[in-house]
């Protein structure tokens, strides 16, 4: 009998559903680490995590019955301190030997960097696993990341919920121990009502089956599968239950023995927007809504009981009853809200603080409307069909639904209700949709706002939030991001790029920051601003740079996730394209270029050019504008290069002109790639650093013009 499974189960009162999974994992990990730390052989790789609403458990197979021999070593004094001139032991050495419980002559010696020293080595037999498991269990339990620990009874200790039983079995042996005032044993407990008698566990490996017989599915995976199967079992024909992972997790941690109950509500309630009904069902009752093939909510829904009821009809009756007043409330909110035009809530927004320094939600709304309208005008100037007045109107309504009763009850319906109310109150489809879509992307993987009108509001809202919150110095740090600015920054960038909106980020940021009140800027006081106009200007420039860098940080991750390399990103970032649409087109061209066979050589040549210019302290951009004096081109190789370069530049002029959307960066790069031969020839045959300053100048200018030609797309040297 060399090894057996170890089972530890802590039985509790009903655990918080959102904590169960994390706690169970952490407990299993703590037990496994406790075994490993003590050198107890165990098949940790096959440890099973069990968790239900009433228990945290772990079963580790192949756990040895004893620790291996323990080799202990304690280091003593160095020889020069331990022994006197006559080689006799000093007090230091005798003290060390005494503490180790041995005679000094029995001590061994070892040498480290500082010299020779005495050492006491001892081999002790490993302790029995049964002796060590109680402390392993205690360490694991006390180390759990409990969000809100609680006390109960008159005890001093705290845990996630009161503890009632403790199982500790190694093979078929009980390991004696205690945790939270409860002594261990082999008796677990089954389903609270269906199996009130204690469950006798013969051994650790029989746990899952014995508990299943006691109407408890201890394996979370099995419970999830059971819920899916049960939902499918009672789903009405032609209906599609919507059981997403979040709801499934909640249901799995709310039930030890899930049984589905098919139910229906009064179809009259379907007049209420279905998002509200679905939210009510899910958030308040954990019911699974059922949709038809077109994604329309139907009157069927599914409840999951924690019971194989003797009379399921009574449970169904109860479920159907409980949803009625909730739906009635939703209908009441909806009907009441419809009586007040959205715009009338604008007044109320003045009383809702957005952020102390940034004013009320109305203040924010005014800023967003102004900015959104400016964005729309810029797009209109580019020939895009969008009405700035309509955009401003939508932006002005964008926060009004926050004051409706429905959103007051269900904050997650913000935007959605704005859309419904606007549509019902005669706003255009575009305006109504904008009230919902401007929040997008709401989560990772969500699309951006679809309509141009919504995109204008979306951009303006995000720009204002980023500018304002950065201005007050509340930018995200570590895992603190209360305004969800990271998502917002990426959402902003994606809206530009995926919406194909060719607008200059820096200009819009300036517009946004210009509207942030002077007194807002971190470290500034209102009284100072009038006399320190310059520093407010500096603050705005500083915040603009911070926000820009923040957006680009998110953007880098976004592109790397899509398979672009950090080098490709840096190559484009270095030339600071004004708009993100432009940035995107350049990046795609660079990535395509990088796949070509001579990309590396051309990058190397560009690096060489950049190095020479840097060494000479030449500003490539300025130098490139000087023009080349053909009379000074002495060497054939430089004449060839100059001719080839100018030809390429001429060819690329039409490719790089016009709006970003029409530019052919890939073609331009391909054209420039043809310079490879002349450039190589130039470096082979021509001495750039000629003694004659005029010659040297001319050659440096030639190189600067090459670099400038590439920089019109990206800094290829960074690849």
């Amino acid at each position, binding site marked *: 009998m060399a090894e057996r499974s170890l089972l530890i189960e802590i039985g509790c009162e009903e655990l918080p559903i959102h904590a169960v999974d994390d706690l169970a994992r952490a407990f299993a990990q703590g037990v496994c680490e406790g075994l490993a730390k003590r050198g107890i052989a165990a098949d940790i790789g096959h440890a099973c995590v069990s968790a239900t609403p009433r228990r945290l458990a772990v079963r580790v197979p192949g756990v040895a019955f004893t620790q291996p021999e323990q080799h202990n070593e304690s280091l003593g004094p160095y020889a020069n301190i331990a022994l006197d001139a006559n080689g006799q032991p000093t007090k230091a050495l005798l003290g060390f030997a005494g503490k180790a419980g041995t005679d000094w002559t029995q001590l061994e010696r070892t040498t480290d960097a500082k010299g020779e020293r005495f050492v006491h080595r001892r081999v002790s037999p490993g302790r029995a696993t049964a002796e060590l498991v109680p402390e392993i269990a205690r360490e694991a339990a006390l180390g759990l990341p409990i969000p809100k620990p609680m006390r109960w009874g008159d005890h001093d200790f705290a845990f996630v919920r009161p503890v009632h039983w403790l199982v500790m079995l190694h093979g078929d042996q009980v390991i004696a121990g205690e945790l939270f005032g409860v002594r261990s044993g082999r008796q677990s407990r089954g389903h*609270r009502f269906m199996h009130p008698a204690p469950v006798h566990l013969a051994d650790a490996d029989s746990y899952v089956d014995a508990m299943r017989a006691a109407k408890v599915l201890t394996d979370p995976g099995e419970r999830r599968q059971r819920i899916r199967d049960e939902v499918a079992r009672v789903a009405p024909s032609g209906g599609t239950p919507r059981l997403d992972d979040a709801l499934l997790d909640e249901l799995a941690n*709310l039930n030890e023995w899930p049984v589905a109950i098919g139910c229906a509500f009064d179809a009259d309630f379907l007049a209420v927007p279905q998002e509200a009904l679905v939210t009510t069902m899910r958030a308040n009752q954990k019911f699974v809504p059922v949709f038809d093939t077109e994604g329309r909510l139907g009157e069927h829904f599914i409840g999951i009981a924690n019971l194989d009821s003797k009379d399921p009809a009574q449970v169904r009756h*109860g479920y159907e009853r409980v949803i009625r007043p909730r739906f009635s409330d939703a209908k009441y909110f909806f009907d009441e809200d419809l009586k007040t035009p959205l715009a009338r809530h604008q007044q109320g927004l003045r009383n809702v603080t957005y952020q102390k320094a940034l004013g009320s939600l109305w203040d924010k709304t005014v800023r967003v409307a102004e900015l959104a309208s400016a964005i729309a005008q810029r797009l209109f100037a580019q020939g895009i069909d969008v009405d700035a007045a309509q955009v401003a109107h939508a932006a002005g309504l964008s926060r009004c639904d926050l004051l409706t009763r429905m959103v007051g009850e269900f904050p997650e319906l913000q935007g959605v209700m704005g859309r419904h109310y606007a549509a019902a109150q005669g706003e255009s489809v575009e305006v109504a949709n904008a009230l919902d879509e401007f929040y997008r992307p709401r989560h990772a993987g969500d699309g951006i706002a679809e309509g141009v009108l919504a995109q204008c509001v979306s951009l303006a809202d995000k720009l204002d939030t980023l500018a304002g919150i950065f201005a007050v110095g509340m930018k995200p740090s570590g895992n603190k991001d209360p305004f969800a600015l990271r998502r917002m920054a990426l959402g902003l960038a994606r809206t530009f790029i995926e919406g194909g909106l060719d607008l200059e980020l820096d200009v819009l940021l300036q517009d946004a920051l210009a509207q942030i009140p002077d007194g807002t800027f971190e470290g500034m006081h209102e009284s100072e601003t009038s006399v320190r106009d310059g520093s407010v200007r500096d603050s705005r420039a500083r915040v603009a740079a911070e926000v820009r860098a923040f957006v680009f940080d998110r953007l880098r991750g976004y592109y790397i996730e899509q398979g672009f390399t950090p080098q490709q990103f840096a190559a484009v970032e270095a030339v600071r394209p004004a708009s993100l649409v432009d940035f995107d087109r350049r990046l795609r061209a660079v990535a395509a270029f990088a796949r070509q066979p001579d990309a590396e050589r051309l990058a190397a040549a560009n690096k060489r050019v950049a190095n020479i210019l840097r060494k000479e302290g030449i500003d490539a951009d300025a130098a490139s504008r000087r023009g080349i004096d053909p009379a000074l081109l002495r060497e054939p190789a430089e004449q060839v290069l100059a001719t080839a370069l100018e030809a390429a530049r001429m060819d690329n002029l039409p490719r790089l002109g016009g709006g970003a959307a029409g530019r052919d960066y890939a073609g331009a790069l391909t054209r420039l790639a043809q310079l490879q031969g002349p450039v190589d020839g130039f470096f082979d045959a021509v001495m750039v650093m000629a003694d004659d300053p005029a010659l040297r100048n001319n050659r440096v200018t030639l190189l600067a013009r090459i670099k400038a030609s590439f920089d019109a797309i990206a800094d290829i040297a960074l690849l």
Partner: protein
Amino acid sequence: MAAPTFQEVIQTLNHYWAAQGCVLLQPLDLEVGAGTFHPATFLRALGPDPWAAAYVQPCRRPTDGRYGENPNRLQQYYQYQVVLKPNPDDVLERYFRSLRELGIDPLVHDLRLVEDNWESPTLGAWGLGWEVWLNGMEVTQFTYFQQAGGLECKPVTAEITYGLERLAMYLQDVDSVFDLVWTTAPHGVVRYGDVFHRNEVEQSAYNFEHADTREMFHRFDACEAEANKLIALNLPLPAYEQVMQASHAFNLLDARRAISVTERQRYILRVRTLAQAVANEWVAPRAAQPEAANG
């Protein structure tokens, strides 16, 4: 088994919890928003002494009034409150047995505990526990008190709050609270509506339309001043009555929408400050003034 009448539900619970050793109390004769406000819960949860009590408490929530037109919402309703300190180890089992006494078979009905952590900003109190769902309907709040009046609760009090109307509506299978059978009298069936519908209509009108807000603001200030005076005099019990009255004045102002969002926070904080001072005073006399404890 015939469904119990409204008053039989109360009688059954009284009988059951008396057998569990609870002191059966009568309602507090002041307007409060929840049974927790009763000194038998809020103050008795503090300090080391054991305590077990059960009582019905009428609760006033002016903003929940609907002029008697909503079958589920009332500006005054009943809670059945049980407090057990320290909580017995099997307090949950005792609770579930009380449901059996009411005729709820846990092998038929889906009973479960859903996490719900309770917090009363005005009382500076919080605890961890659950809503108890009966076929998805919340019929009870179960809380292990961790703090009250800003003070640690040790030993811990278990608080069980039954929503009597909901529970009775379930047992009697009626959809409107006003249809609940209160009892059967010689002259016929007396329903909840017979007893309280007119009260809901008139009180809603008062709460929403006629409550004198200037007077309420004044009353709040006066109660606050009186409470502070009494706290200084080391009279926490009368001081606490002033706190409850200030809290009710605040609730009425809230129903009249006379308090802005930012002010609201400030008023809650003022009540909490008083409640904490009372709690401190209630716990203090033993240590500081043994003669007061004897008196």
